[in-house]
């Protein structure tokens, strides 16, 4: 009889496990964050290799309009989109599977103007090189002019692509 009870209890727990896990509201998705890695260079783009891709005209025009990011050539190296959780950290790896450039982030809730407060960290070669606390709005990216590579300068664009907190 007791064996039957034990088996029944295990079965009930097994069924209830997803419900118990779903109760963690911290894992609820509250937005989406995109990190795109570009490179700007005044040198020959052949040095960058064959795998780099061209930018769309609008993005190139946007980058070129920023004086400190004005280069002869721009190329895209990679991109990653990940969810923003209500209270859990998450990571962006635009060079996946490489971990040379990583971004870790965590939501700090909604700002007064409907943006999303974030704790954002930039990692280079598994070393944290910058920590900041931006308020991001959809369509208004944060550009980070980062390290140099093959004569060019990396540009990391961090953009909120979805913001459920703004509703």
């Amino acid at each position, binding site marked *: 009889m007791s064996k039957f009870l034990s088996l029944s209890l295990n079965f009930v727990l097994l069924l209830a496990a997803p419900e118990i896990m779903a109760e963690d509201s911290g*894992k609820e*998705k509250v937005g*989406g964050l*995109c990190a795109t*890695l570009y*490179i700007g260079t005044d040198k020959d783009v052949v040095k960058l*290799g064959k*795998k780099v891709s061209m930018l769309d005209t609008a993005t190139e025009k*946007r*980058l070129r*309009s*920023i004086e*400190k990011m004005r280069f002869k050539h721009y190329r895209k*190296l*990679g*991109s*990653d*989109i*990940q*969810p923003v*959780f209500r209270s859990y950290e*998450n*990571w*962006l*790896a*635009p*060079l*996946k*599977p*490489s*971990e*040379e450039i*990583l971004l*870790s982030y965590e939501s700090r809730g909604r700002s007064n103007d409907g943006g999303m407060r974030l704790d954002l960290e*930039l990692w*280079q*070669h*598994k*070393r*944290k*090189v*910058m*920590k*900041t*606390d*931006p*308020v991001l709005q959809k*369509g*208004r*990216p*944060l*550009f*980070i*002019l*980062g*390290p*140099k*590579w*093959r004569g060019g300068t*990396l540009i990391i664009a961090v953009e909120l692509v979805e913001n459920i907190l703004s509703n």
Partner: protein
Amino acid sequence: MKKEPDQTTLTQWIDGELVGEELQRVETWAQNHPELLAERDAIQAMNQSIRATIPASIEPPYGDFFNERILRHIESEQLTQAPTLAPKRRIWQWLMIPTAAAGMAFCFYVGTRVAEPTSITSPANIVVSSIYTPDGDVSADIFRAEGAGATVIVLKGLTDIPDDLEMVGNPATDSSNGASMASISTSY
């Protein structure tokens, strides 16, 4: 010592705070009270164990980042409170602001003397309130690019990425279901 020491002296002896002649007197008296000797030894052993386990002081992580945020909060509080002050106090307020600012600047310098503070140019419309660069050789400037509708952080002093490293990633991926959180090792 034939007379029993008072409670204060006994407590000081147990805590190892007695010295010189007084210590000798209590030690002599305690030779006839092995239970007190055992208690003293046990307490002192426990104290040593605690000292070995718990450091005397712990440096807070990212101390300068923390200090900087506190200073900014204090500054914003002062700006908010200034118009509500009575007219008679305004002249003192004017004197207090530079004094407080100088004091805060000094405290900030002391708090960040381990690493050089990051230079931050705050734009009028602040989107990023503070930047912290753990490496003292790295500095950060922030400005708003109105034409591009973006905020820009310029990091200087970063180590160059080796040219032989292949730096092209896969196309964008979105694992929007909560279960597939990126699993990336950050250990050194």
